[in-house]
């Protein structure tokens, strides 16, 4: 079916089985459907109408209406529209139909709902634990409202995660939870035939600390941006920006122009530093340490720039509801422009010499293939999608802050291998540097902070930000007394890591680090870690036995 021309027509087509259709705000709709109709409605929206799966959120709404809410958020990039499909699950029922047979990428989202709310996805092909530890007791669901945020249930003492088992005679190589090539804990198991990977299995959750529960239970709107930016050590600013965007959408407040431009500058600084970091790490993963050192040398200047503008080497502590907390003085603006032109020059020289290095490019070319169809089927985001020929970028599709005033390209490569993703990132650095330069040169004058008086309760806010790794989605339901009722963070890695299996199969063990690395996985983002220790007492890594079972055939 061809995609309807306007957003209104699209909604008309989607309405089909909806009980109710509400327009939340401009270009955002909510369709309430019966839970039995979910698979059909989402199949139609996702496969026939080309929606992009953004996130799925389960909410415990038993105190209000004796049911659980399931929100499926789909986006249409071509139209800049967001449509939320909402279904209700009665408390007594406790199950919902799985949509994974139609929407493959819903896999993890449904498992997360099962972990945290205890709702059973009927028809899910493998509803194993996603984030909760192996020894987490049954019947203890952290995101239900009767579960206090600081409760530590007793361990069951069993660590028996059901890894997939292959019929074929293959060796099993455990990769992680702690491995040189990965700076954060995640566990892959590679089923290898010689050095060739025939299948993989994944277990994450080692970093899950329950930041959302903490925010819902203890924090108010003013505090959450500071926790949100500590979700990630690299793209922290995008998380606070994303949360703030969702709330500001609900409050319908006008942000001063100058604040918007400052936010844009900081977002792009974060992109440059994140991509330079990644280029360095990628060089290290293929054994090219000189590249690692040089990229990080150039990155250091960006860190200096961040320090000058925000007071932190990372872009922390700048954003607040209604604006930013610091202005950029004229001296700093000039100094920043000078630094940016210096970085641009050094970066151009460096990237030219690195990409002409045969052994480096040879390691990246043709490995970790992801076809355009798979990229679309799994709704991958960011450089992973753009490296596979999918031109999607929320900076252009759902413009926020000052992006609509700035001139920039979205680099796309069609090969779908690690080299394509590298090239996309390498170009994005240049684009980001040019955006910073444009924004610094033409930043409007004025105040940087406006005040929000009232944030209405029971409203829905969706924040969309193009983080360096891809689209960051925050879903917020506002609550009473300046607290959030439900806050769901969907980091880009959550969408991208699900395709790691497709990228890895058929390649050799030697390529595995750089293939996984090419996603630029950020586990603490994906698992929403914070510095605050909520549930870490129950975090468990794999027992030695579990890691080794079946290895030595």
């Amino acid at each position, binding site marked *: 079916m061809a995609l309807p021309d306007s957003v209104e027509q699209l909604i008309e087509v989607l309405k089909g089985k909806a009980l109710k259709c509400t327009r939340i705000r401009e270009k955002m709709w909510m369709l309430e459907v019966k839970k039995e109709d979910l698979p059909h409605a989402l199949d139609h929206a996702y496969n026939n109408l080309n929606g992009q799966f953004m996130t799925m959120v389960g909410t415990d709404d038993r105190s209000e209406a004796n049911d659980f809410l399931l929100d499926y958020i789909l986006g249409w990039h071509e139209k800049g529209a967001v449509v939320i499909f909402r279904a209700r699950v009665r408390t007594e029922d406790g199950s919902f139909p799985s949509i994974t047979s139609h929407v493959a990428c819903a896999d993890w989202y449904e498992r997360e709902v099962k972990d945290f709310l205890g709702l059973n996805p009927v028809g899910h092909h493998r509803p194993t634990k996603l984030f909760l530890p192996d020894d987490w007791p049954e019947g203890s669901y952290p995101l239900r409202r009767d579960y206090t945020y600081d409760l530590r249930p007793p361990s069951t003492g069993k660590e028996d995660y059901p890894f997939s088992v292959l019929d074929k005679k293959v060796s099993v190589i455990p990769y992680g939870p702690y491995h040189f090539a990965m700076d954060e804990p995640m566990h892959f198991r590679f089923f290898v035939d010689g050095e060739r990977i025939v299948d993989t299995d994944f277990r994450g959750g080692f970093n899950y600390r329950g930041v959302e529960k903490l925010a819902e239970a203890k924090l108010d709107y003013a505090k959450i941006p500071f926790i949100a930016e500590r979700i990630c050590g690299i793209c922290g600013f995008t998380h606070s920006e994303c949360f703030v965007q969702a709330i500001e959408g609900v409050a319908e407040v006008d942000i001063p122009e100058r604040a918007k431009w400052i936010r844009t500058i900081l977002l792009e600084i974060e992109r440059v530093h994140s991509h330079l970091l990644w280029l360095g790490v990628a060089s290290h993963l293929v*054994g090219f340490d000189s590249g690692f050192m*040089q990229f990080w040398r150039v990155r250091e200047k960006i860190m200096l720039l961040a320090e000058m503008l925000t007071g932190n080497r990372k872009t922390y502590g700048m954003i607040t509801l209604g604006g930013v907390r610091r202005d950029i003085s004229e001296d700093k603006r000039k100094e920043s422009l000078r630094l940016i032109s210096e970085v641009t020059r050094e970066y151009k020289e460096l990237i030219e010499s690195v990409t002409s290095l045969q*052994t480096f490019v040879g390691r990246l070319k043709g490995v970790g293939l992801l076809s355009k169809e798979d990229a679309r089927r799994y709704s991958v985001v960011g450089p992973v999608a753009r490296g596979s020929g999918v031109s999607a970028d929320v900076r252009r599709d759902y413009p926020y802050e000052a992006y609509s005033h700035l001139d920039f390209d979205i680099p796309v490569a069609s090969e779908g291998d690690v080299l394509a993703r590298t090239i996309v990132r390498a170009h994005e650095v240049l684009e980001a540097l040019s955006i910073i330069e444009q924004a610094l040169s033409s930043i409007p004058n004025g105040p940087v902070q406006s005040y929000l008086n009232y944030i209405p309760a029971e409203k829905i806010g969706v924040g969309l930000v193009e983080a360096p790794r891809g689209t960051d989605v925050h879903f917020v339901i506002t609550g009473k007394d300046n607290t959030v009722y439900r806050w769901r963070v969907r980091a880009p890695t959550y969408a991208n890591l699900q395709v790691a299996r497709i990228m890895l199969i058929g390649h*050799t*063990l030697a*390529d595995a*680090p750089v293939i996984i690395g090419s996603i630029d996985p950020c586990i603490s983002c994906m698992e929403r870690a914070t510095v605050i220790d909520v549930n870490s007492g129950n975090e468990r890594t794999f027992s030695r036995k579990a890691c080794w079972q079946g*290895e030595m055939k």
Partner: protein
Amino acid sequence: MNLALLVLNLVLAVLLAPILDGLRRKLTARLQNRVGPPILQTWYDLLKLFRKETLLPETGGFLAMIVPVTTFTVSLSMFAVVPTITVEPPMEGGIIVFIHLAVLSAFLLAIAGSVSGNPYGIVGGSREVILATIVEPSIIVSLTNLAVLGRSMFFEEITENIQTGDLYPWLAVAMIVYFVCIIAEGGRIPFDIPEAESELTGGPMVEFSGKLLAFMKLGELVRAIALYSVARFFVNAFIPSYVIGDWLSFAPLLPYFLTMVICTLVVSLAESMNARFRLFEATKLSGYLLVVSSVTLILSLLTNSGGLM
């Protein structure tokens, strides 16, 4: 066999190997715009390892204790058959024993990987075997080339026969092949495929720690400098009497240490200018090396009819 000379040589090997590795680290760091560790850093690392207790995986067993020490001993023997600061080697044996020991030490590393019982060790061990199998032939052929032109299998006789001759163009080619092999045998980037820190977390060495790891490391370093020591016999192709050191009227001391530093520089240059090869890329390169060195050998045999035969 001269016992005093042997002891002197072994002490030299153990002292010098970590210092040269420290130098390599320093050079690589400078090439990467870093300050780098002090030149004695590798020594500090080893001393620290030697002070630690011996820990072994349950799967390791008795062999895992034996292998590191054996690796170290084999490397020392390898070093002892090459003349270093004197013209005479401390131990008889010549090229043939040298090559045997080189092969043996590579296979010992593979065994170390297997006995540790760790899947990474096993994969690393199998990669080590493959790498050794594809690289050793080139070493053998280029050393044979040296033997043909030097009309002997013994280093001291090669020195004597080559020093007064003309320039040996084929030897120059063999030398280049040999330099690449040094990097490959020493397990340095781009040939650090068996150990591959970011892929296999150390490969064969993954389960070793403390004293055993120190022995493995020291063994590897001594093996590398034994390979460096042979390199200077090729230099005769450019500088007659290089090995003996007549050209500067010093004892062979200066040319020896000069060769060691040059080899270290070559290794760190290769290290900072390359990414790690994949196994098939290494195989392809070794194939070329073998072809080049074999052609050179045939040409040497043809042009020096009064050679070995």
